């Protein structure tokens, strides 16, 4: 069983907001899904999945970048060629 506190902690780690009223149903669904995942405990041991192909590389060649105005037009807030973002300090 995963508690509401644990779901809150995961929400914090995932940086995904969670409303007070959402917490009980989210926790309930979360537990139902984890109960179903318990079947994985019965998986026989093994190496784990591998793609099997290696060394897919490209040559070190410069290709055109996007025009600055196109890049800035995608963002809603630009300033002197920079893109505005929330403060991190």
């Amino acid at each position, binding site marked *: 069983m995963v508690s509401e506190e644990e779901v809150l902690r995961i929400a914090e780690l995932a940086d995904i907001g969670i409303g007070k009223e959402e917490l009980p149903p989210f926790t309930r669904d979360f537990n139902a899904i984890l109960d179903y995942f318990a079947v994985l405990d019965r998986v026989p041991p093994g190496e784990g999945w591998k793609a099997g192909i290696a*060394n897919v590389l490209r040559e*070190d*060649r410069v290709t055109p*970048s996007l025009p*600055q105005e196109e890049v800035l037009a995608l963002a809603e807030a630009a300033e002197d060629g920079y893109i505005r973002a929330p403060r991190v*300090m």
Partner: protein
Amino acid sequence: MTVPIGMEAGSAVRETAGSGLAAVEGGRETVIIGLEVHCQLNTESKLFCGCSTDYRSDPPNTHVCPTCLGLPGSLPAMNRRAVEYALLVAKALNCRVADEAEFARKNYFYPDLTKGFQITMYNRPLAEGGYLDIEGDGAEKRVRITRIHLEEDPGRLVHMGTPDRPRYSLVDYNRSGIPLIEIVTEPDLRSPKEARRLLNGLRTTLEYLGVFDGDQEGSLRVDANISIRGSERVEVKNISSYRGVEKALTYEITRQRGVLRRGQKVERETRHFVEARGVTTSARSKEQEHDYRYFTEPDLRPLQVRHWVEGIALPELPAARRERFTAQYGISPEHARTLCGELRLAEFFEQMAPCGNPLLAATWVADTLQGELNYREMEIGKVPPARFRELLGMLCRKEVTDKAAVEVLRRMLDQCLKGEEVQSPAQIMEKNMLGKTAGDTFTGIVREVIAECGDAVRDYRAGRGEALNFLVGQVMKRTRGRADPKELTRILREELEPQGT
């Protein structure tokens, strides 16, 4: 000679920061430092896209594409040269290249990170278990390299507002996706000075390999793990200069000692180095959670490049070049160390060595020129080799005195700094009458007098000082009093010295 430190690889004895052993070295607690060094590799294009890496002089957000901007649907495509460069470094640092290396996602959220994760390597790095010998006090010291891996650089943030009243950030993604090599050392370093030396050693090695340019702003960043033995380990992030490393570590050691002296415990935490104030500050709890939820990057395939290593020829590395310099040019080990400590300096010296007197060239490049460059915070790359070679030639031929040559050099460097065309040493001497043109003509006259007054010269060389006064008088007479007797005395003395340096 090399002093191995804890080289019992695989044995149980392995020092780790904060290992809980109380030990005292030289009356003080042992300081334990390990570094994580990030260097930008100088490929043409970025690690996972074709955007040019030559972004420093360009406006923000002009070297970006769907991939390095993390636009929905974009995919990474791995740059072969970045892998080759990383293998060069791995070989030069005596590492074991993995049979299979693999990229992983490091998940954390920050506005400079375009995808919400960084593509890096986690439990399958490119190479492990190497070492680098660094200059020690007395003997050389061997620092073990834990691992080497490739990863992408995030963009660059500019903080608007003040530290007290931050407003918002501005982001430039030109740096996003620049290839970085991360080199992690074992906690083998015992002082900030050693940490600095390790960095210098790494920088030099990477520059010799031609994969890194340490002069580029922001091309090197360091995180340091530091503890006082028996106490918790602190990670100091965000150190972005060579000098910063020594400053940050010195500050942090003082801080940790202070905490211990007050009888408190050093907390295990992440701190940021604030370069402008020379202090470290505690990072907020959010970043301390450190749950990066690594998993294999599903958009890339693993690297099986161990067999490439045999085909890689290493260029001459600093240690080999030092030995060659002492053997080939007969210069002192100290000069060889200084000269080889920086690729461009070593190359500059080799351009100067054919001047006829390598010892003189070594002194002038390693001591005089380096001193003048440091004073001006100038790089060796800015010095025109042809001009400097002319100056050395004149010195070899005794056409200029040491003192005058220093004057000439200073004027040459000042001209470089101002972006003017650098004049020839002869021109500079002529223009600056005082020492040079005068000195030059006087040198001629002095030589005439020496040639003609054999008796007085013999007397002087036999130790009779007053003979010098006679000679000065003779020169004064011929220059009709234009010369400064003091300067003349100096020139005469020099000319009368036996040849050689």
